[in-house]
């Protein structure tokens, strides 16, 4: 196995152009498990941990550009107030040690449907910034996930950052696991209310071949919410929203849970997170 450890971003892109099969590694919390279990033998590893700019974030316009190498622990600590949905998801990732190492960039690269950061990126309408020696482009999160562990990147591209607006309203994230910490999602749900645009964002995790939005649920809810004179939500709205979120999923029976349970749990999580988010909106 070849091992590359570029010191600069341009060097990394050049290596990736020359060795498109090289597997990028940052925190290593996915890759090292796969190597240890011998489920994958990459021809080359491209270690990105020397590239300081990947570990930086900056405020840009009404949002942030967050380097792909920023750890979950730092997202919670440094960006939690502005990106509460993503921070809530980050808190559910692994253990403290894993959160110190793992990165959103790694989640995006692996593109597992169970990745915890995907639902808030979808709900928050994030863009993924990818780069190659050919240039840089931004891919909306909703177009980024292409299949089980497949994303929209070209073989010579690396993930530079993601761009996401600061929360303009309440955000929530909930995840099912069969123990109370350190667990891969059975299914998960992210919700963002966007009062400034009168829209709703959603993200469904671990209940379809890819993370995905619940578009019908978003449209339905945006039409039902009384943004200007927020009263209590009618039960019928909560129930219908839950149903539409569950319908957006196409889960399977697997070792972590049944498809029926996933649909059921998604509807419960959708109702509850909506209740919490709307209560929060009404209070402010």
């Amino acid at each position: 196995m070849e091992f590359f450890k570029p010191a600069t971003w341009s060097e990394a892109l050049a290596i990736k152009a020359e060795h498109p099969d090289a597997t990028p590694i940052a925190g290593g919390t996915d890759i090292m498990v796969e190597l240890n279990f011998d489920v994958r033998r990459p021809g080359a590893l491209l270690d990105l941990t020397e590239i300081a700019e990947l570990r930086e974030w900056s405020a840009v316009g009404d949002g942030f550009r967050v380097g792909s190498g920023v750890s979950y622990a730092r997202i919670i600590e440094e960006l939690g107030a502005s990106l509460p949905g993503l921070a809530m998801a980050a808190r559910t990732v692994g253990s403290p040690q894993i959160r110190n190492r793992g990165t959103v960039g790694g989640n995006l690269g692996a593109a597992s449907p169970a990745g915890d950061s995907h639902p808030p990126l979808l709900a928050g309408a994030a863009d993924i910034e990818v780069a190659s020696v050919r240039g840089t482009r931004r891919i909306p999160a909703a177009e980024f996930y292409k299949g089980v562990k497949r994303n929209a990147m070209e073989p010579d591209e690396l993930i530079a950052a993601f761009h996401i607006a600061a929360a303009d309203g309440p955000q929530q994230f909930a995840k099912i696991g069969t123990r109370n910490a350190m667990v891969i999602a059975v299914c998960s749900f992210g919700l963002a209310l966007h009062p400034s645009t009168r829209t709703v964002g959603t993200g469904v995790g671990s209940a379809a071949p890819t993370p995905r939005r619940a578009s019908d649920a978003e449209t339905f809810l945006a039409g039902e919410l009384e943004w200007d004179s927020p009263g209590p939500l009618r039960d019928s709205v909560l129930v219908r929203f839950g149903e539409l979120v569950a319908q957006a999923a196409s889960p399977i029976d697997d070792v972590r849970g049944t498809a029926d349970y996933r649909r059921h749990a998604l509807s419960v999580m959708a109702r509850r997170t909506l209740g919490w988010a709307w209560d929060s909106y009404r209070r402010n």
Partner: protein
Amino acid sequence: MSRPTSAPDRITTPISGGVGASPPRPDGTLKVKGEFAYSSDMWIDDMLWGATLRSPHPYARINSVDLTEALKVPGVHAVLTHDDVPGQMLFGLEHTDQPVLAVDIVRYQGEAIAVVAADHPETARRAIAKIVVDYDVLEPLTDMEEAVHSTDAPTLHPGGNVVRHLPIRRGDQEVTAPVVIRGEYEVGMQDQAFLGPESGLAVPAEDGGIDLYIATQWLHVDQKQVAACLGLPPEKVRLTLAGVGGAFGAREDLSMQVHASMLALRTGRPVKMVYSREESFFGHVHRHPAKMYYEHGATRDGKLVYVKARMFLDGGAYASSTGAVVANAATLGVGPYEVPNVSIDCWGTYTNNPPCGAMRGFGAVQAAFAYESQMDKLAAELGLDPVDVRVLNAMSEGTAMPTGQIIDSPAPVAELLRRVEAMPLPDAAPTDSYDLRQLPGGVSNTTHGEGVVRGIGYGIGIKNVCFSEGFDDFSTARVRLEIIAGEPTAMVHTAAAEVGQGLVTVQAQIARTELGVERVTIHPADTQVGSGGSTSASRQTYVTGGAVKAACEKVRGMVLDLARERLDIDGELRMEGGKIVSDRLGVLAAVADVLGDDAIDETVEWRHRPTEALDPTTGQGFAHVQYAFAVHRAVVDVDVDLGLVRVVALDCAQDVGKAINPDAVVGQIHGGSAQGLGLAVMEEIQVKGGKIRNPSFTDYLIPTILDMPPMKVDVLELADPHAPYGLRGVGEPPTISSTPAIVAAIRAATGLAIARVPVRPEDITGTA
């Protein structure tokens, strides 16, 4: 010899760290800091690495094994199959039925077929991948009841698919009762989930023998099996215990012992083998899954009249210790209750599922889930309190077991129940605020209190301590006393395996108390001394502790004889604080002065009282040495909408006879309770068509600190007159009672008739 003038006239330093104290364990700090040398950390110059080819099929005929390409891989030194086994082709704890390497047929997914030694572990794995096996894949037998009763099922072993059937018949077999409670219960396949994977180092010796450094639970039973398979006399197979990273029963059977030794003998080089985490799930036995049909008959007051049960335990492809597990499940099958009329049939079966054998609780765990579920059902049927119905039927000293054996030491079942019941309950969950860590789902943020219902449940378990049914169960201890740097120093040498439970600490404590010396060293456990028996059945403090005590008594007797001779006195003497002391005359001499340059070195083989075999048609007999009891009260919060559970409290009372090391006792109770919690709500090896679906800690979940609540633990010490110091085995009982307590609490919270563990979110939400 005249009285030494240097002898002080009083004992200045009382001995600390004796029996009843809690001296720190020597391995504790090292383990916490990651500095302890486990078996997988061993290294020796010039060693090779072994790897194992395993069957991907649960049941298949092997037509051919082609090693040609594997042998061509540079760096490969040997590729061996069953043709290369030098001695006996089969091994096994109770039945020698398991091939060292598969012969013509594989009976479970993961069965070893060939082994490779290479100069790098990756090279060994690559060579494994180049071995070509031609299989005829067969339809696996995976249903344990079918294995027993179906006439269509394939016969997996000569003699049929039943490893053991044990009937228990006591009292009136035709008796009826006004209240009848029936239930069917299932227990999933739990894994011991030790953290240190199977590993060892085999070093070829100049005499043609082998030195094997190995993490195991019983050095001598390994030695016997390895020697037979290598075709060597036992004295040429020398074992030394390497650092053990947990056991819980999973190291009772051989894993890589014979394989590494074969490779080392063939290559003339040391060979190390370490299983990966995934391989480990295929490399050891698991807890028997169970299907149990129960019927309890009672009076309208709730007094038990009879218990009838049919129990099936899936032993998987090879027998391992299935026979003994069957005996426990059957003889302990009614629980710690007075039941005048009993009819139990228990079958342990062969199937093509993963082999099952020893795991903490050993048959008693499965039975307890069923009989405790039945007791709750009985209480509900009669409108009785679950504790009251248990107390009403509680056994006590003098009770006859279903085997006819009379309980002849304290059995404080009712008192343990009342003590746990009297413990304060945790506060109700606050309604005006929430802390995610205190809620079902934890930090995953699935509820802020919505759907959360609290439930309370009780569970009690009974466990036999030590080996049963007439087994010649003994341990050997060698104790040497000599003067080192002016101080009397005892050395304790046994072959008993320290697997994390704290036996090395206990051995030193016993030597301090019996010899009155502060300084004790523990010799590494090896086969240069006689067998210590297995580190299982909660038996080591009892049996090896008993052996160390007896060896110390013998050494002490010789020292005191020497003192009488050298000090020229008669009468009762004792050793205390490094001195020879007489009641009448006070301190007479320092041990150092009496012993001088002499060393006293004695070896004792010690046995507990004998047991007897069970009658094969009635299951009657004095089969068990000792019984131990623990009670749990579980308080759970269940999110009934999502089916998620948080155990809020898991308080326990247990009688330990005598707490030799109180801290270690409480540690055992904590750990055992957590393992029972795992079985209650998350731990299961999922097997489908004979194949394991979740061989990793990603999907085989064990409790974390957020799942396991802090515990209140009440330790009773009611001495067993038959046992050393009155002690009672500690390790297993808390694993048995915590599972039914938690499930009872979940039932109380949800109103659901849950009959299977582990309880899944699907079971609570009706989405299975």
